[in-house]
């Protein structure tokens, strides 16, 4: 009789090559994604005179620095152009497949991997980007790494890791209409804190998680890192297999059926022990927005800006005062009275087709009171949205329909929120300066961003959905 094991234990064991006495394990890496920011790692590779061990398991995407406008004309900023060219050179030199600037498969790495069928259940997936946790939606063990680790994976296709503790977050029940995966994610983060899952791998379980589409699961797993988690995982099921069937790099025909057989056992055993358990009631989750400068500064839209003076802990009060000062907010202000300057719909968190549909369902027949940018999660999502006529909805609402990339989530391609401006955003980080120096970010779901756009202030999407097909 073997000890019941969690999915995390099973995935770990499958990839462990050796374990040292101090507990460090050498893990086999199944998929390695790289992007323009991986140049430090390629420099390390070069300085050691090494080559890439498994170029067929490494895939590159241009996303962080790519322009979202006027791509055909090339990149105007020479430093940004050099970043994209550098990736082209490094991947060509090492025989790595690149979905480059003008490739129809280009997009944000965490959208493209799943979309191309590269991310599969049971795989160990790494990338030099913290939002690699996204791929856990497929039952993959996926986590972000730094440049030295990227270099190590390039050279050896392995990685030294210490096994994290296991946290199960169970979300049971049914979410109300107008409540999205992003709201579940923000509810989790608000509950356990921005560092609440540090040192832990998270398995998301429960009926509300099972009910999520693959895209919803990706949003949720994507935000695991915003709770400090090493990774977030959802056990694969029929939704996962349906999503993957027919994807370009996924197994085909009889191979696919064999794979599904292998993937179907990727679940936590009944009675498997977790180091920690948290449970949430899906029915109690309302649409959520952030008010401060970390993602756990999150409240239901019908709440008010909290008051530092009401805090018992001095350090917390001090943090809140600084956050409110940066955000330009006064304690007690109703969240729905906070006027915004612009909106952004994009990022690896919330720019897939279902996200665009959810935003468009609110926007159709309405006009945005503020300017805004819509950058699809991938070029393929963009084409699909155009086939569905969503681009016309965004444009008619007065929003800018742009090409795909990380764009205004991190601001390094030049798409930035100007200093002091307030942006309702579908992204993942409301950190100071994240969307540009001095930018003020409020995180929320795509439908909630659309609600803010047509209202000119943070707003509850639920009344705006009355009588609409969503």
């Amino acid at each position, binding site marked *: 009789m073997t000890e019941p094991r969690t999915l995390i234990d099973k995935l770990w064991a499958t990839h462990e090559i050796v374990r040292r006495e101090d507990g460090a394990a050498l893990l086999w890496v199944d998929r390695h994604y790289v992007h323009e920011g991986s140049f430090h790692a390629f420099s390390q590779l070069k300085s050691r005179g090494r080559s890439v061990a498994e170029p067929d398991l490494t895939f590159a995407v241009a996303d962080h620095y790519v322009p979202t406008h006027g791509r055909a004309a090339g990149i105007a900023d020479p430093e940004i152009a050099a970043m994209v060219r550098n990736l082209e050179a490094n991947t060509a030199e090492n025989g790595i497949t690149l979905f480059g600037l003008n490739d129809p498969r280009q997009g944000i790495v965490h959208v493209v991997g799943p979309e191309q069928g590269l991310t599969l259940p049971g795989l160990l997936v790494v990338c030099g980007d913290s939002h690699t946790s996204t791929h856990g939606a497929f039952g993959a063990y996926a986590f972000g790494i730094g440049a*030295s680790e990227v270099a*190590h994976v390039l050279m050896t296709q392995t990685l030294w890791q210490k096994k994290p503790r296991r946290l199960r977050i169970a979300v049971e029940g049914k979410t109300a209409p107008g409540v999205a995966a992003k709201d579940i994610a923000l509810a989790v983060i608000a509950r356990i804190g921005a560092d609440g899952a540090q040192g832990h791998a998270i398995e998301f379980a429960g009926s509300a998680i099972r009910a999520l589409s693959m895209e919803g699961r990706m949003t949720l797993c994507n935000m695991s890192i915003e709770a400090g988690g090493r990774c977030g995982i959802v056990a694969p099921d029929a939704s996962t297999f349906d999503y993957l069937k027919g994807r370009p790099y*996924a197994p085909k025909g009889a*191979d696919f059926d064999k794979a599904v057989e292998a993937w179907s056992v990727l679940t936590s055993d009944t009675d498997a022990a977790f180091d920690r358990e948290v449970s949430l009631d899906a029915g109690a989750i309302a649409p959520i927005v952030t008010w401060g400068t970390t993602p756990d500064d999150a409240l239901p839209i019908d709440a008010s800006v909290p008051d530092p003076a009401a805090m018992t802990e001095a350090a917390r009060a001090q943090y809140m005062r600084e956050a409110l000062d940066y955000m330009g907010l006064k304690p007690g202000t109703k969240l729905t009275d906070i006027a915004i300057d612009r909106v952004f719909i994009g990022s690896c968190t919330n720019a897939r087709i279902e996200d665009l549909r959810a935003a468009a369902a609110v926007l159709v027949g309405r006009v945005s009171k503020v300017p805004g940018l819509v950058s699809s999660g991938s070029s393929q999502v963009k084409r699909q949205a155009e086939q569905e006529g969503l681009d016309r909805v965004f444009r008619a609402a007065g929003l800018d329909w742009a090409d795909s990339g990380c764009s205004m989530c991190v601001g390094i391609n030049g798409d930035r929120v100007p200093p002091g401006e307030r942006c309702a955003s579908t992204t993942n980080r409301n950190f100071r300066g994240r969307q540009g120096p001095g930018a003020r970010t409020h995180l929320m779901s795509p439908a909630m961003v659309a609600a803010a756009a047509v209202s000119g202030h943070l707003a509850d999407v639920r009344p705006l959905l009355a009588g609409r097909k969503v």
Partner: protein
Amino acid sequence: MEKFTRLTATACPLMRPNLNTDQILPARYLKWPRARGMGQVLFQDLRFDAQGKPDADFPLNQPRWHGAEILLAARNFGGGSSREAAVYAVYDAGFRCVIAPSFGDIFAQNAVKNGLLTAIVSDAEVAELASAVEADPERPLTVDLERQTVACGNREFAFAIDPVSRNQLLNGWDDVDLTESYRAQISAFRAADRARRAWAAPALPRR
């Protein structure tokens, strides 16, 4: 990699919670090669306002903390983005150790690869250390990785660090060299795994 065993140096208190990697090194500097000097833009947007005017209250701008090699921080230091350049910035500004109640996992992992010690003490302990150096900025702290202690005057605290990271720092191990010594095991694993999980390889896309 440089070994870390023991360090006696002055410490700079920076007691704001959640100093994530976007604060440590703003994203616009990520395209810099390290040789350009990332230490000079450490905490850039907290140190300087939009006009480039230094914030006199920010500790790193105060002469009394110049030369500090230890950074005292509040909880959740280095959360957020995986950018290793945040570690380069801290290290290249002269810091060899950060003491805080908690760290972002990826930051801590990146730190150890670069010889930067991340030492974990309680909120109360780091607050006490911060008060001590506020009162006397010249007072050095001694961080002993063998014993896992940080001493300040006649006070001494135990700090926590993952044993794997401790080993690596004490020995100055290079991961790639270490992995090379397991080459045979890796090859054997690869072959067995290919047979066991044929589906794991990327299928050739249909043209």
